């Protein structure tokens, strides 16, 4: 698909970079400092690092990674509970690959698997439904971690389990919503932001309209942005234009993928099966209505209602993941980064996940 390949064309990317640097210079002249933007998507964090854009723009635009990595924002007690869940008898735990090496207070899922627990990495939640059907004598539990891009697929798995009348299938819902955490960040005033690079994939489900609150309630701009180098730079450029024109607005710069209204079948499914819930976030305590759980009529598929899990207070470490996902510190400011904490021996989830800020810094920006 030729037009999509153009988005990663090196010559066009270089030209785009120059345009962004010129505009950032204008901003600096007017404001006496460089602009500060936050990306609220872990895939953006990785794309900015991998493409070299973050490094190249270091002196011109400050890009802060926000709470966009699903595993990273999940609080440690929930992580411990999910690992504890694997210890029970006669059960198969299914998960996305990201969770396997996330350190628990005692062990990780990977260690639990090594100890003989039946833990399986699946590509899709629907694969776990199939596993439940093939293993009627066992309880099959899927660890449902994710933002709005993933949540519709969790509900699809529930719908499929319902259709197949499975009694041995459930999901441990630990879902997170983007708008409440963005509001919490802005309300806290902890970090000064000029605007947001908005999550292209979450927007596929929610649509542009779900981010209008930024301009309406906070007079803050955001640009829905794609993931290839030219798209990343175009998103930053348009964001800077909005800032220079002092025009709070939400733009969709990923129109060929994101519709203004989002994905309506996915939104319908969310409404049918799920209800709002107060979720605990790493380093941020509880944010009201910041997640979705199954409605009471689907309680039979709710692993949190089916299995009683109790875990103590999480083990304390010097990991600063909770501050990193709020944009308060960079990975290099954590005493563990690249010392006690590396991808081979991670202490916190930000170093494990393929969308984690520490993993991105370790892989692409170490020593800069």
């Amino acid at each position, binding site marked *: *698909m030729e037009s999509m390949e153009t988005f990663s064309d090196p010559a066009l990317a270089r030209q785009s970079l120059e345009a962004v640097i010129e505009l950032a210079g204008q901003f600096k002249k007017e404001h006496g400092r460089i602009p500060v933007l936050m990306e609220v998507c872990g895939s953006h964090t990785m794309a900015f690092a991998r493409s070299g854009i973050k490094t190249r723009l270091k002196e011109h635009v400050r890009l802060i990674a926000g709470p966009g990595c699903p595993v990273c924002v999940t609080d440690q007690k929930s992580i411990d509970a999910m690992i504890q869940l694997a210890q029970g008898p006669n059960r198969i735990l299914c998960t996305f690959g990201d969770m396997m090496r996330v350190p628990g207070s005692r062990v990780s899922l990977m260690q639990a698997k090594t100890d003989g627990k039946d833990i399986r990495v699946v590509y899709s939640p629907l694969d776990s439904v199939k596993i439940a059907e093939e293993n009627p004598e066992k309880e099959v539990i899927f660890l449902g971690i994710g933002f709005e891009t993933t949540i*519709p*697929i969790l509900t699809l798995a529930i719908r499929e389990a319902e259709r197949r009348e499975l009694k041995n299938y459930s999901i441990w819902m630990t879902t997170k919503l983007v708008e409440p955490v963005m509001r919490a960040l802005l309300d806290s005033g902890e970090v000064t932001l000029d605007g947001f690079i908005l999550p292209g*994939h979450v927007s596929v489900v929610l649509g542009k309209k779900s981010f209008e609150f930024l301009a309406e309630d906070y007079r803050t701009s955001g640009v829905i942005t794609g993931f290839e180098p030219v798209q990343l730079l175009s998103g930053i450029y348009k964001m800077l234009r909005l800032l220079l024109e002092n025009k709070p607005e939400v733009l969709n710069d990923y129109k*060929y993928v994101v519709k203004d209204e989002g994905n309506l079948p996915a939104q319908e499914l969310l409404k049918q099966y799920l209800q709002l819930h107060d979720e605990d976030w790493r380093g941020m305590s509880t944010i009201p209505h910041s997640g979705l759980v199954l409605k009471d009529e689907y309680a039979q598929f709710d692993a949190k209602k089916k299995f009683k899990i109790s875990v103590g207070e999480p083990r304390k470490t010097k990991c600063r993941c909770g501050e990193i996902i709020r944009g308060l510190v960079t990975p290099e400011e954590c005493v563990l980064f690249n010392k006690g904490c590396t991808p081979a021996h991670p202490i916190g989830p930000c170093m494990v996940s393929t969308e984690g800020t520490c993993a991105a810094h370790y892989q692409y920006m170490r020593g800069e």
Partner: protein
Amino acid sequence: MCLGVPAKVMKIEEQTALVDVMGSRMHVGIIFVPEVKEGDYVLLHAGQAMTVVDEKYARESIEEWRNVLNGKYGNLL
């Protein structure tokens, strides 16, 4: 964990479709993209096609961006 490369829809079969992802073929769900047609490109996430890529918009978007760059970063917004 999020969406990846675009996949070309080769064959539609009720609620699934056979797609080609950079030479590999696989079946994916298409419940979220009722408008999908054979020959379309879709973006995948966890085994589901989440959106149909609008090629017209993609071409326009590149064109618009080239114009911005070549027009000495003229008026865009």
